[in-house]
């Protein structure tokens, strides 16, 4: 048994309001550099829809993740030999246009335009070419179902659903899906990197790119089925979500979680048996993958496990954090969080509590003193089709989704009866496989959602770390420091003080002799 600790995140989709605050704060923190304008390490998609990049879930075409072939787990885009043979041209690379061509606006024109009959406008300018462009696709193009009556048909999660009906206006449904890197237990991006530049941190499972080792072979981008490894087209290096490791190491939540106004995110660690991962990812039937992944997680309350974990060098405070981990509670104990697309076989570590749809509405507002015979069949009539959620979170197994929704509904009816002091048919809880204590705890974690309950983040033991200076540049992102003197690059480097000295404060500065 090889015990590893792994950070995970759970997002409660019932509470996501699609405000994109997570995307904005993430982008402001990490991706406002040249070459990264188009990247959203965190993005929020409206589902159904083709998403960002377009049709990222269509891995029959995109070839991300793993599949089982001849009884063996193999990279879908091809193994080692095929990668090296295709190194000069990656057959399955997703182009920047599928994300979107980054642009800015010709703001100068607003100021410099001479007097005219019409208002001056700021036309969009491509950041790739510096020329005027027509915007035909962009981030969140499908926000709140915009255009989805067209694009939504290409959403792979719609397979096996009666599409015709679901895109009728009266039948439409939608939900938000915030996405970051999954920091998988069995990462196919790491496995696809020929240079060995991508790695998983042994201590906490965070997946990073060593920018000094990346050689621009771009197979990681194809390898990731979630399309969460990006290509910086200016530095020619891969970049991705770092799980905000500088914050995490200090016990703080990621910036997307910290700023989430809906408080939908939970961060914690799980202990898992690394020796079981390959076997779990290789199970024949896709529908068994969810359970197989759960099997890899270890019980942090088991004294035997604790003893072994200590022996293998996992610190005590980390074992304690694993016991209080909201991720462990939601995924393993309460079993209401589910992995996104387990069928990609990467064993993702960002899990989701599926949304209930407008709950009161589905029950006609009559939610008091309901019997299980009324509540549970109603779940099948929810606005968001169970099969759709099943295609997203359970490899098509609708029973898994039904179980989770039953629990969520049971918890709500129970808590409603408690709060309003109404009679309650306890068989509802029993049928959902719950006890009053579990319902109580679920309620606390999902509805009250205290900061300290949502984020149980053990600090990293930096006192044991090696030479941090030597590790510089291997932590996932870097700035453009390419051999400037020898490359004769055509991009001058802006001196941050230049603006200041060239007379930005001229009006305040009495001595203007120094300014331009």
């Amino acid at each position: 048994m090889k015990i590893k600790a792994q950070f995970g995140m759970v997002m409660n989709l019932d509470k996501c309001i699609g405000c994109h605050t997570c995307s904005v704060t993430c982008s402001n923190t990490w991706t406002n550099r040249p070459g990264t304008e188009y990247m959203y390490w965190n993005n929020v998609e409206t589902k159904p829809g083709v998403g960002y990049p377009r049709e990222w879930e269509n891995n029959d075409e995109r070839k991300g993740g793993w599949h089982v072939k001849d009884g063996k787990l193999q990279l879908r885009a091809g193994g080692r030999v095929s990668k090296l043979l295709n190194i000069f041209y990656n057959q399955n690379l997703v182009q920047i246009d599928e994300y979107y061509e980054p642009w800015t606006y010709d703001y100068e024109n607003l100021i410099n335009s001479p007097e005219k009959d019409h208002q001056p406008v700021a036309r969009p300018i491509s950041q790739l070419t510096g020329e005027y462009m027509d915007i035909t696709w962009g981030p969140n193009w499908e926000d709140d179902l915009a255009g989805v009556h067209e694009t939504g048909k290409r959403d792979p999660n719609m397979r096996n659903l009666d599409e015709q009906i679901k895109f009728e206006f009266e039948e439409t449904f939608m939900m938000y899906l915030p996405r970051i890197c999954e920091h998988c237990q069995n990462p196919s991006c790491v496995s696809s990197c020929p240079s060995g530049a991508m790695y998983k941190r042994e201590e906490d499972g965070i997946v990073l790119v060593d920018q000094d080792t990346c050689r621009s072979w771009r197979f990681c981008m194809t390898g990731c089925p979630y399309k969460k490894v990006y290509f910086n087209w200016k530095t020619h290096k891969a970049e991705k979500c770092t799980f905000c490791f500088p914050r995490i190491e200090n016990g703080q939540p990621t910036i997307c979680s910290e700023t989430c106004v809906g408080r939908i995110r939970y961060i914690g660690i799980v202990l898992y048996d690394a020796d079981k991962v390959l076997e779990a990812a290789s199970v024949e039937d896709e529908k068994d993958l969810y359970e197989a992944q759960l099997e890899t997680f270890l019980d942090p309350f088991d004294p035997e496990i604790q003893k072994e974990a200590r022996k293998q060098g996992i610190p005590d405070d980390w074992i304690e954090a694993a016991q209080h981990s909201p991720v462990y509670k939601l995924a393993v104990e309460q079993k209401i969080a589910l992995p996104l697309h387990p069928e990609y076989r990467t064993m993702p570590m960002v899990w989701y509590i599926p949304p209930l749809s407008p709950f009161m509405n589905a029950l006609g507002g009559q939610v008091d003193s309901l019997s299980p015979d009324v509540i549970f069949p109603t779940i099948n009539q929810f606005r968001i089709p169970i099969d759709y959620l099943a295609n997203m979170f359970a490899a098509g197994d609708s029973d898994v989704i039904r179980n989770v929704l039953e629990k969520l509904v049971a918890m709500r009816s129970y808590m409603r009866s408690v709060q309003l002091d109404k009679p309650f048919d306890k068989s509802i809880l029993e049928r959902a496989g719950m006890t009053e204590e579990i319902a109580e705890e679920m309620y606390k974690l999902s509805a009250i959602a205290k900061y300290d309950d949502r984020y149980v983040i053990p600090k990293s033991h930096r006192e044991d770390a090696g030479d941090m200076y030597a590790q510089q540049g291997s932590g996932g992102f870097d700035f453009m420091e390419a051999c400037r003197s020898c490359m004769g690059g055509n991009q001058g480097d802006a001196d941050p003080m230049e603006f200041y000295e060239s007379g930005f404060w001229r009006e305040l500065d009495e001595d203007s002799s120094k300014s331009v």
Partner: protein
Amino acid sequence: MSNLDIFFWLVFPYISLTIFVLGHIYRYNTDQFGWTAKSSQFLEQKRLRIGSTLFHYGIIFVFFGHVAGILVPKALFDFFGITDDMYHFGAIWFGGAAGVAVVVGGFLLFLRRVSIKRIAKNSSVSDYVALVTLGVVVLIGFTNTVGYTATGGEFDYRVVIGPWMRGILTFQPAPELMANAPIGFQLHVFTAFVLFAIWPFTRLVHVFSLPLKYLNRRYVVYRNQHTHDLSKLKKRKEFH
């Protein structure tokens, strides 16, 4: 043998090779971040497909062709009973085919770089310098093969340029050999050494990063912050 010959066929090659070797060591130790293939496939791939594939496979074959023709002594071929006719048949037809692939592929890549705005705007001076120098070397070399050797030229580079090159590499230079070579071959050799001199400062360094290690590596790479052997990394940082 004039002083000019000494410069071209003795001094310059050594200057060039010195820059080549030291330049790579310097760049590797100071600029890991800039050491990449600089792929632009993410911005444009339709036109890259044929150009890049033809060019790269062609040039790999051409490289091994040069090894066989220049670095391997003719005597070895004779020893294995490979006659001149057999050798030249292979060199002209297979080498020629690889040459066509390189020339066509390289030309497509050049066209792509200058005509597609996204690529042109994001190309650095070094990209153009590398591409054009490489293009000149390739075109002259290809002309020699097609226009001279294949049309029955008397000159056998295996008994002139081969020994000269091996002399350079073994520090027993014989510049007089090159002095009498046909001008086409002289130009090819000279421009090649210009290319070697600029090589370490361009994207061409990615040639040395062909990730063969991947073939027998385990798929998932872990790194440990605590016990990870950082001596190599550390050395690199101390180089400054």
